[in-house]
Structures are given as structure tokens and as C-alpha cells.
């Protein structure tokens, strides 16, 4: 039995008020979030929103300029051995030593991890169809991803940390990656923190979600709660309004004539009452997908940065 004195809700990753500046660009702007133990935490955002910068702070390869980062209650910058020994990391850039053979790569990586499970590594190697005698430089893109995934899993880490793991890969390899995520939490009660812009994948596998826009966390919480706090309402007006209707809590409005569809955030009752006060009735109502919420949030930011126009 594991005799862990800390409560099970203890966060595995805790980030408080983290900011990071690269020259003139503020890459992370006062980011705070918590990854609870035993959960799958998905990090979404556009390219350049700050996801990779955030993950590099969790790995300890970037030092916090202001704010705090703790992983397993440790500082990843001052205690890299304590943190990295328990993390399985996979990034879009799978930097593998190209001159090695597969079996050499496994033995080499094993040396870094006291918890390396030789049997499990061998099982994964067969499952992924990786030839022990093949040179790393001769591997296809998909095989490189599988090799990277094997290295991230074989020491049975407490935290899987994946940065855009599915990017540019075929559906079969993406499936292997999602399976690894599910197996990690289902069989072993471990924790997964991953970034992705494949929103349907995030929606499938995550419990928790954080959405980043321009270095800021704009949404954070349980995926179900995030989804339930957003609504897609289709409004029908008696007479076509002269300009797009403005509802408080509306993130994005599209449509025309008498019918307009709004993705909004807020209490449903208030939104319906507000629509009525504008002279519209709700003819359709639904839960938007994560993708719709994402486009609405990012789109809203784009609209705000443009000078407002009555056209």
C-alpha cells in the first residue's frame, strides 16, 4: 500500500502569478493554474498563445521571472532530478539522438531513470512495431513519435507532460498517444498535463481545461463546467435589427436578417430574458462544442483589438 500522507487533491502542478517576457513580448501574463492529481488537464490556445513557454516552466527549462511554479511540491529549476525523474515528457520536437539504434536508445534512456520498467518498455516497443536494430535517423515521423512516447512512458512517470503530442501525426499514432493518456489515468491514477490544438481530442480525454489567449489564461476549470457555462442561442427577431444584436455575455454573434446565432457565457435564464427585452425569442438553444467556444473566445479578442465600427 502507498502510504501517502498528503491529501489526494494535492495539486501535482501549481502555478501562481507566472509572468514571462521575451524582449518586448509578454509571453506569459500572470498565469495561475492547478493540475490536480489523477486528472487529465488539457491546455488549449492558438500558436503563440504561450502554451509551450508555460510547459517549459513546468519542466524547469525556463526560470520564472515573476511568480511561482511548483511540481510535486518542488521547484523544477532548483530540483531538476526530483522533478524530471517523475515526469514523462513528449514534445512536438522529438529530439532523439539520430546516430543511435533503437535498442541503444532504450538502454541509454534507462540509465537516467531508476524506475525504468524493462518489461513494459519491451511491451511498448512491440506494440508500436519499433525494430530494435533500426537507426533512429531512419525512422519515419510517426515512428519517431512512437519512440518518444515509449521513452516518456517506460519509467511509469507520475506526471505525463505532453506539448502538442499529436501535431502533424497520422490518426494511428494519434490514437496511440490518446490511449497512453487514458491508460495512464485509468490504470494507474497518474496525472496528465498536455497542450493541443486538436480540440476534439482535448474534449474527449480531459477532465480539466485551461484556455490561453495572448499569454493569459482566459478560461480554466472542469471541462463540463466550462461547457455548461456557455450557450449557443439562435434568436429570431420580429423585424430584422439594423445591426448585430448585443447581448451581455455574448462572445460572438453571427447571422443576418431576422435570425442571429450567439455564443455566450452566463446564466441561461438571464440570457433568454435579455433576448426578450431586445424583442427576440430563442428558437434554438444548445451546448456549443469546445471548438465553438474556442473560436468565440479567440474571435472576441480579435474583434476587440480592431477599432469599433458601425458598418
Amino acid at each position, binding site marked *: 500500500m502507498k502510504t501517502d500522507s498528503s491529501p489526494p487533491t494535492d495539486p501535482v502542478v501549481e502555478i501562481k502569478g507566472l509572468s514571462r517576457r521575451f524582449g518586448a513580448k509578454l509571453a506569459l501574463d500572470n498565469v495561475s493554474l492547478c493540475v490536480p492529481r489523477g486528472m487529465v488537464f488539457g491546455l488549449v490556445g492558438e500558436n503563440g498563445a504561450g502554451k509551450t513557454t508555460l510547459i517549459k516552466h513546468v519542466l524547469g527549462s525556463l526560470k520564472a521571472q515573476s511568480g511561482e511554479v511548483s511540481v510535486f511540491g518542488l521547484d523544477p529549476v532548483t530540483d531538476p532530478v526530483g522533478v524530471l525523474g517523475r515526469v514523462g515528457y513528449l514534445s512536438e520536437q522529438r529530439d532523439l539522438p539520430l546516430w543511435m539504434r533503437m535498442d541503444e536508445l532504450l538502454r541509454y534512456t534507462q540509465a537516467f531513470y531508476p524506475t525504468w520498467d524493462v518489461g513494459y518498455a519491451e511491451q511498448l516497443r512491440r506494440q508500436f512495431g519499433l525494430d530494435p536494430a533500426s537507426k533512429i535517423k531512419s525512422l519515419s515521423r510517426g515512428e519517431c513519435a512512437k519512440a518518444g512516447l515509449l521513452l516518456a512512458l517506460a519509467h511509469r512517470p507520475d506526471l505525463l507532460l505532453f506539448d502538442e503530442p499529436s501535431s502533424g501525426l497520422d490518426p494511428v499514432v494519434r490514437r496511440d498517444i490518446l*490511449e497512453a493518456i*487514458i491508460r495512464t489515468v*485509468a490504470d494507474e491514477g497518474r496525472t496528465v498535463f498536455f497542450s493541443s490544438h486538436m480540440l*476534439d481530442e482535448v*474534449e*474527449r*480525454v480531459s477532465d480539466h481545461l485551461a484556455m490561453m489567449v495572448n499569454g493569459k489564461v482566459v478560461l480554466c476549470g472542469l471541462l463540463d463546467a466550462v*461547457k455548461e457555462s456557455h450557450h449557443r442561442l439562435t434568436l429570431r427577431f420580429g423585424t430584422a435589427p439594423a445591426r448585430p444584436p448585443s447581448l451581455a455575455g455574448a462572445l460572438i454573434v453571427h447571422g443576418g436578417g431576422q435570425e442571429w446565432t450567439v455564443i455566450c457565457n452566463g446564466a441561461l435564464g438571464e440570457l433568454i430574458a435579455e433576448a426578450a427585452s431586445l424583442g427576440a425569442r430563442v428558437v434554438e438553444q*444548445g451546448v456549443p462544442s469546445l471548438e465553438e467556444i474556442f473560436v468565440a473566445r479567440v474571435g472576441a479578442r480579435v474583434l476587440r483589438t480592431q477599432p469599433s465600427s458601425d458598418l
Partner: protein
Amino acid sequence: MQIHISPNDGVPIYLQIVNQVKYLVGSGRLSPGEEIPPIRVLAQQLLVNPNTVARAYLELEREGVVAKRHGSGTYISETGSPLARRERLKILTQRADALLAEARHLDVDLDEVIKLFRERQEILARSQK
């Protein structure tokens, strides 16, 4: 157990699982007493979060569609038949609603729809002989 998940169709994933299990029971593809896969197995098969599958199973148990047996697994309820009939009717009700709505749009009245049903029934019965 064949279940298909589409993350983007607006129905929460746990509810997609609930609805499809009910449909499989209603259509007889899952029989009373039949065991359904453990949570972690279905989670890996569907590639969805295990907590989502757990939530679906809890809902199915609450509605009496499935029952847990202590120390073994989750099974389709033995009292499945009346419920299965209700579920079957529920599936048909949704189709009927859609058909009636369409008939209204096309300005076809109820008597004509019923007449059409009878005609189609005869044609189908004849073609199966």
C-alpha cells in the same frame, strides 16, 4: 458493445454513451443479464476520459438500465423488458415528432400521413413475401 462518440455534436460525451447503451438495449443488441465492459476498458476503447464513462454508468444505474453486481461487474438489468419497451417507444416518439413537424412544413395533414403509413406498410409487407 458498439458505441461511437462524436465530440463535436453538442451532446455531452457521457450522454452519448447513455443514449447509445439505451438504444442497444432497446433494439435487443444488449440482452438482460449481459455484462458491459468495465469503465477503464470502455474508456480505452472509445478514447474518452474514464471519469466520463463512470458518469455515464452512474446515470444508467440510476435509471435502472444497468446494475452493478458486488465484486464483479456491470450488467444490463434483468428487469430490462418493460424499460426496453419504453425506450423503444421513446426512440419512435422522436422519429414521429420529426415526421409530424416535416408534414406540417409541407402542408400535409395528419389523416394523409396516417394513410401514407398504411400504404407503405402494405407495400413493405408485399415486398417481403
